């Protein structure tokens, strides 16, 4: 494919992700942090975030499956997850986490379970989108183009 076309696709995709609220300004900030000294900074961080997410989601599922449910434990996981998601700029995940924490505080099991499902849903959406984004970037780099910055 044409590099220019790829670049346009990338721009559009990222803009769409921001528009739809998957990502926020923090993600652009992250991209700004990436420079010659750390060329794979964003990908590294996001990979770390993926690992973290899967761990935490598993932990949450396990914690919510226990009888009786230790809401404090769940809350700790959600807190962690909220921090991570905020750091990478995963806005929608972060928002769900905020709601999740409220349910934890209220010890509302039903709400928690629903939030967990939503988290999983949001996470998989985000992961797919981001992976697509990175794939585009890789393709551009492979084609010898530079990754456009987004204002």
């Amino acid at each position, binding site marked *: 494919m044409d590099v220019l076309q790829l670049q346009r696709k990338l721009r559009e995709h990222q803009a769409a992700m921001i528009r*739809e609220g998957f990502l926020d300004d923090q993600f652009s900030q992250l991209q700004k942090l990436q420079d010659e000294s750390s060329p794979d900074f964003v990908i590294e*961080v996001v990979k770390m975030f993926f690992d973290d997410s899967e761990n935490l989601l598993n932990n949450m599922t396990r914690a919510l499956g226990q009888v009786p449910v230790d809401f404090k434990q769940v809350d700790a996981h959600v807190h962690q997850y909220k921090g991570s998601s*905020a750091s990478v700029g995963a806005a929608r995940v972060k*928002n769900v986490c*905020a709601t999740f924490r409220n349910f934890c505080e209220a010890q509302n099991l039903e709400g928690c379970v629903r939030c967990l499902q939503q988290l999983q849903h949001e996470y998989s959406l985000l992961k797919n989108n981001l992976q697509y984004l990175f794939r585009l970037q890789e393709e551009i780099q492979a084609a010898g183009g530079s990754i456009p910055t987004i204002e």
Partner: protein
Amino acid sequence: MKVKSGCVRRVFYSWIVFCTVGGLYGFWHMSLNACEQRKESLISMCDERARMLQDQFNVSMNHIQAMSILIKTFHHNMNPSSIDQSTFARYTERTAFERPLTSGVAYAVRVLHSERGQFERQQGWTIKNMNTLHPSPAQQEYAPVIFAQDTISHVISLDVLSGKEDRENVLRARESAKGVLTAPFRLLKTNRLGVILTFAVYKRILPSNATPYQRIQATDGYLGGVFDVESLVEKLLQQLASEQAVIVNVYDTTNNTHPIVMYGSNVSGDSFSYVSTLNFGDPLRKHEMHCRFKQKQPWPWLAFNTCVGGFVICVLLGYIFYATWNRVVKAEEDRDEMTELKKRAEAADIAKSQFLATVSHEIRTPMNGVLGMLHMLMDTDLDVTQQEYVRTAQGSGKALVSLINEVLDQAKIEAGKLELEASLFDLRALLDDVSSLFSEKSQAKGIELAVYVSDEVPEVLIGDPGRFRQIITNLMGNSIKFTEKGHIYVTIHVVEEVVHSIEIDKELGLEDSNNVSVSGFPVADSRRSWEGFKAFSQVGPLGSFSSDADLINLIVSVEDTGEGIPLEAQSRIFTPFMQVGPSVSRRHGGTGIGLSISKCLVGLMNGEIGFVSLPKIGSTFTFTALFTNACNNHHQSNPPSSEFQGMTALLIDPRPARAKVCRYHMQRLGIRIQVVSDLSQGLSTITEGNQIINIVLIEQQVWDRDSCMSSGFVDSTSRVHDGVAPKLFILVNSNACLGETSGTSNPRVIIKPLRASMLAASLQRAMGVSCRNGEVPASLSLGHLLGGKKILIVDDNGVNRTVAAGALKKYGADVVCVSSGKEAISKLKPPHDFDACFMDIQMPEMDGFEATKKIREMERCGRSKRDGFVDNLSKWDVPILAMTADVIQATHEECVRRGMDGYVSKPFEAEQLYREVSRFFHS
């Protein structure tokens, strides 16, 4: 208090008793005095009478004694006697005035029985018995009367010795050779009480020590005088005044047990009587005079009235004291009650504020949930109607949260819990932010929004930017709500500057000069809004402020051309929850709490707030606030970007007030500016002036007015200066106004409000100034601050750690990461290698607060050990900043309390990061 009151009542009653007793005593004392006086007067009167009686009696007695000598001389010593009855009678008659008390005088001779016959023959009558009036039976001796005054001539020839009283008298008289008195008896004929005084007449002069017998033998005869005591005393008393007041009784008390009344009646009189002894010269007889007042002692009215009066006065005085005391006690009780009520009211007020604070805080938490859920709901598949519903719900929720925040602020202020931050901030940037916030609304309404900050205001101030922003936002929000046309104009000056300008105006007489406002509409005179400010009244004639140079007193005014505040509502404009009227809140919303909060915040900034408002013309709110100057040379203002440095702009604007705003913003970019009032002038400046004009700014008003000229203007400007044509910009208030400005070569448009950054962006776009690095100035400064600093990051979350490290590395810091509190402690053993530490608060095992506590303890130990030589303090006190994702209200205070130095939110915001870090790294 009750005890006291009872006590006072008892004192009052005992006072009454005391008064009564005192009154009675006084009365008793005074009446006794009166009685004594009466007695004394009686005594003196009585004595006086007795003395007079005695004197007169003595006079009479003396005369009778003299008569006895007369008789001895002329009757006995002469032979024949030269006195006969008729001589005696005449003589006594004529000398009766000498003896006022005697009613008659008689002389009897001593005749022995042996001489009786011869005597009877000689006299020619026989001696008669006194009682029987018959010739006297034979006796040893006789004492027949031979001479008698005519008044008692009937006693001649009567034997005096035959009468019982007379006999005794005669015998005693000749024995004692003195005048002798009989007991009082009824006189013959007159039947009145009388006494007889008898003197003996002797043949020869006897020695004073003669025996009674010698005297008897020497006796020749007896002279007797009859005293009519009754008439005598009466006469005497008549001579004296106040005879009626006193009853006088005279008694013969020779026989003590049976005193004989000589004078007086038994008229009852006063019980008190006085006795004076009378001495009539007869030692055997005793006489007394008894005096009494006729009337009983009258009731002592004077004493009574005096005492009653005194009593009444004392009781009244006592009552006055009693009543006063009661009043005082009552007032004190009332005051105590009031104090108690006040305390309760204050407690209730505090409780209310606390309740509000708690409830608001508690509402916020679930509201976050609601808003989050709504946000999520919006991301799901919804049709248009549903989306509309959700958007409305979200809008309402946001409004509710902001309302709750306001209430929370109010409650915090009332509870006195609101504290101001002290951090560095750029006032101009802050105002740019605020005007961007309102730009949408002002553009939609077509209002001109202008901000002007005086050059005297320092670049960087220390204060609470959030709260300052809150005040300005509030005032501007109100203005924009109520303004439909015209302008909103925010100005910030240093107070001194304003004061000087007032003085200059006064000197020049410009006070009333009608300066045209920014939009040309009339405005309320802002000066009247700070008439009452203390900051101005403190200023001396030279405008010298005594405060030290580091303190900057800013005066901020927000002027609008809105509908104004109705006069009747102006007085309660700063009262919480007060709005102008119910219709206003329906139309514009809001709680009416904003101005009250603003007032409190201004108060916290040591400032004052005031306003002036004219209905239908507009309002001007003015407040002052005290900040600290952060940079010493505040006149040297650094333009934020230097790419426009040295350029010159031409502003075509006929209105000086508006031009001033524009000039201010352009100067911030380092652009010099010239102002002309219309297009033709502008054109001549561009073409003929010897200066290169890079930019031309034209007010929309000018552009529209001279539209016929505008295209020509564009053409001619594009040709000057060898093709380096100045760029044209039109300044407009809103997009909508720009419809008709047609033309092939339309210049670019800048929509107000003017802000430095926005201006810079517009100019960059138009002029193609290369924008190499879009970094905000703050990040430059951050790099400056953080460059080469060694910073430790503590976070259990790998992603967070990496991102934070990345961000700080970007600013040039040397970053080390650890993942737990324990590791942090091992890294942060004093003396420190690190310049700062960013620590996550919520971590498993050991959270941020605990780790900080441990580190602070180690620092303390280390410091005390090395007390002697503290080489570098910073090695012993590392700044620890909390990193936290949720920014709850109390976090800053909480962090400081736990030994941290501040907090930064995750993910890092450049501005906040700068603010916090700048406090430690003073470069």
